[in-house]
């Protein structure tokens, strides 16, 4: 192998700042998956940075590809979790432990004694799903 040639650079895309930012955002998004807003913000930024990291070439850097995968998984996961939670909310609120937890969280966040059914717009379980999508 001739040492004068840099074989590695011939086949790889140089890592740039956006690729590193994409990787960082993607990984932090996965780590903070349990919180609601941060993973969505970081996941979207990871995908945006990954595409901006393409420096005139079609090939994405390794870091960018990881960023896209982590960001996409996080966004899809968070949206799926939120949708699942909304769909099953009336059933979940039947559980006293869960109800107490949500009640305490909302009371602390918004102050006062929050009526959960009124807050989430649940009057009866049958019409709940229909109302969510209009």
């Amino acid at each position, binding site marked *: 192998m001739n040492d004068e040639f840099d074989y590695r650079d011939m086949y790889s895309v140089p890592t740039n700042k956006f690729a590193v930012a994409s990787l960082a955002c993607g990984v932090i998004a996965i780590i903070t998956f349990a919180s609601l807003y941060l993973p969505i913000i970081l996941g979207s*930024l990871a995908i945006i940075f990954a595409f901006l990291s393409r420096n*005139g070439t079609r090939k994405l850097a390794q870091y960018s590809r990881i960023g896209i995968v982590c960001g996409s998984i996080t966004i899809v996961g968070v949206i799926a979790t939120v949708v699942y939670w909304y769909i099953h909310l009336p059933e979940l609120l039947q559980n006293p432990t869960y109800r107490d937890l949500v009640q305490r969280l909302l009371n602390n966040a918004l102050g006062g004694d929050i009526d959960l059914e009124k807050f989430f717009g649940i009057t009866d379980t049958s019409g709940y799903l229909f109302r969510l999508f209009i």
Partner: protein
Amino acid sequence: MPHQTFGEIKAHARGSLNGSYGIAILSFIDTMLLSFLPAYIVDYLFPNKSVFEMIGSEIVSFILTCFVGILEVGLSLIYLKICSRQKATIADLFYGYRVNRNHSLMVCFVSTVIAEICSLPYVILSSHNAANAVYAPQAEYLTLICGMLLTLILRLPISQSFFILVDFPEYSGLEALKLSMKLMKGNYIRYILFLLSFVPFILLSILSFFIGLLWTIPYIYASTAAFYLELAKSRK
């Protein structure tokens, strides 16, 4: 001469923006802040919503929007410099006010007239609704979105005129508008598709609570500047 692909134009924009994101983001923030100014001034001058005040506010808003719109010429200069690998400064943002102000004002006037005419149904509907609450809010949104789409389509022929004003400072506003129409002839669909290709970026930026716009908007501006350069080169 065959046209470059969208990928090549965007690659040009990304490559040019490398190392220039600071000035690009700063100019975007400045323009955003200054473009909010007309709305604040109008709200301050006309707090009540009587018919005369509404007409007055529309006229004042129109004049101020025309004047603030001159910043677009400066933005075009910044992005043309970035795409040509020249050093851009934040002072370039006010280029339109320093050089050939009347020519810039002329182009802004035409551009604002198109936007105002297209947004007229929304203005009438919302003011009527505020007084009587006759129509559903969805009707307001619909007229707003239709107005915005119509503005985008009607502005297509003159979309390159700000770049032309910077590229050919000796041209008058009218000449810039005419040349833009000439350049865009046969490229309307291509330009619409080019703009539509940024929709996923915009959606992701919205999902990131608008933080992503800090990088997306400069990217879109740089890409449109690269599109103009490619258009001008292919027509030479």
